[in-house]
Every structure is written in structure tokens, then in C-alpha cells.
């Protein structure tokens, strides 16, 4: 019976899936000075369709945590389960967006988005690519090359590429960190729109507290050495959120207080 349920979930990824159960005892890296513990004692459940932001200073292991969720790091003590199935490596059911767009310079925007869809029939592939390019507002740029795009546009293509595999979870690692402030705000709104349209689970790593409070259902605050989750703060505000709103400011301040409490930042 359990197998059948799993198969059903496979066939309808976006509607039913996207629940993450994370339980990491520790993750170490070998350095010249010996073993360095980057993550310690992290257990966390993320609901399907939830938007979670992980904030932390540099070196707190937040990127490592995201890479574990993506399946790019497999050498750690613990388990990550997506809809009950263990995560053993990368898969199309998790889309990843990095800080750099990582588009392939020799492919057009269209072909970049289609990169992971080689198994689909050409007509189906084109339909999907056009759908997601339309979703991020770049349908007219499908024949452009990455070097012809601005930073924000490139990152939108990267989001489209990550979504094209119809993932249950979208993982973003400081996706807007290298964009200018105005573009960043536009991209945050864009991402919210995409999330509301696709209903995927989203895990976004950032060091921008305002960004986290603006986007997330829950903000996870990480502390460093060893990296662990220090506190979880729910953000019960309806979208669209007003950054100057009183309640917004209050939550932002409480996240900030977490940061400057002892032991979080040096």
C-alpha cells in the first residue's frame, strides 16, 4: 500500500508533495586543523507549500544546509526526507537557484531552461519552457543569450530553470544577494508571485533580515560554530506585506534581536 501512495505522489508532485523532514546530527568538513563541525543538531519539519527563510551570518552553515537539501552534500550524519522518501542525491523534485545564476553561456535562455528536460518530448519541453519563461516575465527573451541579460533577468531565468523540472521544493541560496537594492525588491515580489502560482515548498537562504521577513511564513535564525537553528519565528502577516508596517517592523526587530543576542554573531 505504501508503495502505491508513493507512486501517486510521484504522479502529482506539485499538488501533494513538498514536505521536508530534516534531522541532521552533524556535518563536518575535514580541514588542516582537523574536523570542523559546520552543522550540529538540526531537526526541522517543513510543510508542503510553506515558504521558509533561513537567516544567518556568513559561515553559519546555512549554505551547507541548503546543499544537503539539494543532495549536493551527501556526507553527513543524519537524514533528510522529502515526502517520506530519503534524499540521497540531486533530483528534479528539488529545484536549485544559486547566488550566481549559473546559466550556460553557450545556450539561449530557452535552451538553458530546457537543460534538465532532455527526457521530455520536444513539444512538451517547449510548452513547459514557455510556461515558466512566461511566469518570470521573460517570454520575449527566449532566444537571447545569458550575456545579453541583466543580473535580475539572469536570476529570473535561473528560477525558471529550477521550476521547469516541476520540483516539489524550490531551494534558493542567497539568490538576490548580488543584485542592486531596487532589483532585489522587484525580484522578491516576483518570487512571491511565482510561489503563489506554483504552490511549491520554498526554502530560501539569506543574510538579509528584511528579505526573510518580507517573504517567509517562518524565519529560521541560525547561529554559528557549530551552525544550528537558534530560533524559529513565524511571520503571520498576509501578503502583500508592507515593509513600513508596524507589525512588520516589530518582527524584523525580533529577528534582529535574535542576531545580536550572545552567541549568534561574533
Amino acid at each position: 500500500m505504501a508503495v502505491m501512495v508513493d507512486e501517486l505522489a510521484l504522479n502529482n508532485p506539485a499538488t501533494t508533495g513538498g514536505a521536508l523532514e530534516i534531522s541532521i546530527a552533524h556535518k563536518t568538513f575535514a580541514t588542516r586543523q582537523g574536523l570542523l563541525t559546520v552543522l550540529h543538531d538540526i531537526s526541522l519539519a517543513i510543510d508542503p507549500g510553506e515558504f521558509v527563510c533561513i537567516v544567518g551570518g556568513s559561515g553559519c552553515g546555512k549554505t551547507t544546509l541548503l546543499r544537503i537539501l539539494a543532495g549536493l552534500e551527501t556526507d553527513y550524519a543524519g537524514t533528510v526526507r522529502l515526502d517520506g522518501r530519503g534524499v540521497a542525491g540531486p533530483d528534479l523534485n528539488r529545484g536549485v537557484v544559486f547566488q550566481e545564476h549559473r546559466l550556460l553561456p553557450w545556450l539561449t535562455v530557452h535552451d538553458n531552461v530546457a537543460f534538465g528536460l532532455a527526457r521530455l518530448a520536444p513539444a512538451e519541453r517547449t510548452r513547459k519552457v514557455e510556461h515558466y519563461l512566461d511566469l518570470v516575465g521573460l517570454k520575449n527573451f527566449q532566444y537571447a543569450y545569458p550575456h545579453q541579460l541583466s543580473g535580475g533577468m539572469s536570476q529570473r531565468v535561473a528560477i525558471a530553470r529550477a521550476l521547469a523540472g516541476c520540483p516539489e521544493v524550490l531551494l534558493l541560496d542567497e539568490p538576490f544577494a548580488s543584485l542592486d537594492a531596487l532589483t532585489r525588491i522587484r525580484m522578491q515580489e516576483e518570487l512571491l508571485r511565482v510561489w503563489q502560482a506554483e504552490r511549491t515548498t520554498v526554502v530560501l537562504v539569506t543574510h538579509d533580515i528584511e528579505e526573510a521577513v518580507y517573504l517567509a511564513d517562518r524565519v529560521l535564525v541560525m547561529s554559528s560554530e557549530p551552525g544550528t537553528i537558534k530560533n524559529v519565528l513565524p511571520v503571520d502577516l498576509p501578503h502583500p506585506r508592507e515593509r513600513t508596517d508596524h507589525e512588520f517592523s516589530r518582527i524584523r526587530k525580533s529577528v534582529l534581536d535574535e542576531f545580536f543576542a550572545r552567541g549568534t554573531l561574533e
Partner: protein
Amino acid sequence: MSTAEQNHRLPRKESTTPTAESLRSEKRSRHIHVADRFLGWIIPLSILLIWEALARGGILAPNWLPAPSVIARTIYEMAVAGDLWHHVAITVARVAVGFLIAAAAGTFLGALTGYLPIARKLLDPLLQSLRSVPSIAWVPLFLLWLGIQETSKIALISLGAFFPVYLNLSVAMRHVDPKLLEVGKLYRLNSFQMVRRLILPAVLPEYMVGLRSGLGLAWMFVVAAELLGASSGLGYLMVDGQMTGRAAIILGSVLLFAICGKATDWAMNTTGAKLLGHRAR
């Protein structure tokens, strides 16, 4: 930096989108480019004219430096007589065969050492030390082993053209951006797909550079091979011109070498530009 390149980078720098305006300015810069190339012709043409005038005025001795028109006529007469084609064809054939062998070997060994660290550790030190021997230094050995016929000439050309192909490909494959390779990992490409869909396209620009310099060296070494002992080919024509004291034949051969070399380089470059498409470097 040429104007064309500059223009290529403009849209990115201003972080604007490719619009009709940027396309138009691209067209405008192409006009400037043509004007630049015209500028480049002024001095060579002037030198030719002065040279011609000096030769006709009897200031330059015809057996020392014949007039450009005399050189042109010499080439023309040999072409009409027919033996010129024979010499050009045999030289081109030597370059082609030698270069193809070098490209094949360089591609195979370059890809092998670029992709497999163990192959690099085994082979690269040996190949690098062979590279530090000037290729011409092998000539006596080649003559001893392979005789003075075609084989030794082809061997010299292949050896000379091999290294840039090998080196460029091997180094480029080792330095493919690991961040791009990670994208391949995310989409679960196997090793074969990794090479075909990520590594090969990523190294194509460097590989083309390697092929181009290899081809240039093939032309260099065909001259050496033919000067050292041949009974046909453009190099032989030069030796013949020297023996018989006809500077026009030597200069004519030099000119033909230049034309052939430039033509193959252009063909290679055009193919490369087509393969590389619109990507920016």
C-alpha cells in the same frame, strides 16, 4: 579591444536589455570596423607603390629585389605553365595530413588528460618535457628512421602542430568552472552527458584557439620540412629560386605561403565563429 568587442559588452555593462537601439548601434559599429580595416591598407599599399617605382627606376637591382609586378608575373606564368598548382597542392596536402594527425592525437590525449586526473599524472610530465625540445631538433632522427620521403615531413609537421591542440584542450578541460559542473550534477547527467553537454561546449573556445595555433605551426613546419629536402612543394620552389638566383620565385613562394596560411586560418576561424555562435567570452 576592437570596436566590435566593445560594443558587444555594452549591453551587459549598462545592464540593459538587447533592444532595437542596441542592435542598431551594433550595425553602426560594423561600419566603423570596415573603416578601420581600410586604414590598415594604406601603409602596405604605399610601400608596394614605392617599391614598384624604385624597382622600375632601376634603383633596386632586379636580381636582388624585383618589382611587385615582376613577382606577380612570375607567379602568373608558373600558374599558366601548370607546375605551380602541383607545388601548391603538394604543400597543402602535407599540411592537411600533418595537421589532421596532430589534431586527432592532440584531441585524444588532451581530452584524456583533461578528464582523467590519473591519465594526466601519467602522461602530462612526459608530453611537457617533449614539448620543451624544439621540434626541428627531431629532424635528424626522423630522417634516419623514416627516410627523406613524405613520412618524415608529415611526422615533423604533426609533431609541431600537436602541442598547442593538446595543451589548450587539456588545460581548458581541467579548468571548466566547477559551478557549471554542479549544474550538471543537479540534473543528474552521467559522465558521457557531462562531457557532451557541459565540458565540450565549455572548452570549445580554448579548443578552437588550440586548433588555430596548431594549424599555424603546421604551416611553419611544412616550410622547414620542405627547405630541408624536397623535390616538390612551395618550400622546394624557394630552394630552387635560391639555387638559380631568381629572387622573384622566392618572393612569389613567400607570398603563396602567406595566402595559403591566411586562407586556412580564415576557414578555421569562420568555422569556429559559427560553432561558438553568439556567446560572449
